[in-house]
């Protein structure tokens, strides 16, 4: 099991250690694939984009800023590659989908997660419900939640990946949680009737 840090692996690769690149790829394939699948759905397209991401990383490895962390850089490339791919497929002409934001949800409005809501379901059902809810979240929230909670990036790193300010990402993260909770409370209905309470 390779235990060198990502940044060390990049440095070693640049110093001529070919196996360091393979180790980096093996370490991050799953994460990058999951991330690209958020844009493209699971399947061959996400795999192709994951592959293209690593090819770009390999090609631009000399441009990697050694003072920074590797993972945000990698995911930044993955994100751009996925968006470029969608652009060429002409399925994402409306980039607003990725910038749709800020409908005024705030953490103050966050109702306490009614334990009964999820407790009524089995553990497996709970997880499925949550995943379904995440899947229908707007992209901007989904990406932030995904990078922060699954990929365990700090919100500062997430901001780096998305090319946004840290405060914006923090706000999106909070709003993402609020939306997610509302979705779960409203039975996954993304547009509950006005005035409905949790």
């Amino acid at each position, binding site marked *: 099991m390779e235990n060198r840090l990502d940044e060390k692996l990049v440095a070693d690769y640049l110093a001529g250690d*070919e196996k360091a*690149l*393979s180790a980096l*790829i*093996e370490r991050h*394939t*799953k994460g990058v*694939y*999951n991330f690209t*699948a958020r844009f493209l759905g*699971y399947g*061959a397209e*996400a*795999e192709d984009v*994951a*592959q293209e991401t*690593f*090819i770009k990383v*390999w090609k631009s490895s000399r441009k990697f800023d050694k003072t920074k962390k590797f993972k945000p850089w990698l995911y930044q490339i993955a994100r751009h590659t996925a968006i470029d791919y969608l652009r060429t497929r002409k399925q994402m002409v409306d980039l607003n989908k990725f910038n749709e934001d800020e409908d005024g949800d705030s*953490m103050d409005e*966050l109702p*306490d*997660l009614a334990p009964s809501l*999820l407790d009524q379901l089995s553990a497996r059902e*709970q*997880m499925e419900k*949550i*995943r379904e809810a*995440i899947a229908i979240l707007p992209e901007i929230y989904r990406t932030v*939640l*995904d990078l922060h*909670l*699954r990929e365990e990036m700090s919100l500062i790193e997430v901001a780096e990946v998305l090319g946004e300010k840290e405060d914006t990402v923090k706000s999106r993260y*909070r709003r993402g*949680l609020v939306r*997610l*909770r509302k979705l779960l409370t409203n039975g996954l209905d993304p547009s509950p009737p006005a005035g409905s309470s949790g």
Partner: protein
Amino acid sequence: MYNTQFETVIKQALTEETSVHSAGLSQKIITAIEKRKRAGVITRLVLFGFTTLLSLVGSALVWRSAGQAFAVSEAGQMLALLFSDFTIVVGYWREYLSSLAESIPFVSVAMVGALVWAALASVYQVIKNSFVLIHSAVWHG
């Protein structure tokens, strides 16, 4: 303040999500990169091989014309003075250097120098890339 319990549940849901990618995706990616590396090396080999050939032919041609230019110039005679009348050269070294500089066919000499340098640099690249190609063939069968 975040609701950590809620976040924990979300995190669990995300991390437990089954990632269905084809078996050996990592290896597929590594192979794709290796292929591109080899393609790059082969392209460079062809390019530098061609450059080597051109610069060697060019050097040979320019060498001949540079030799002729050198012969008709007074540079040869000026250089011969170094061996025949060294004390005079030392005594009048400034004048000697100035005359020598005027007599040398610089353009021809520079062309020969540039072409020889290009040939040597290309040969170095050909050797280097051949080594990389052989090395990668040994590693990857």
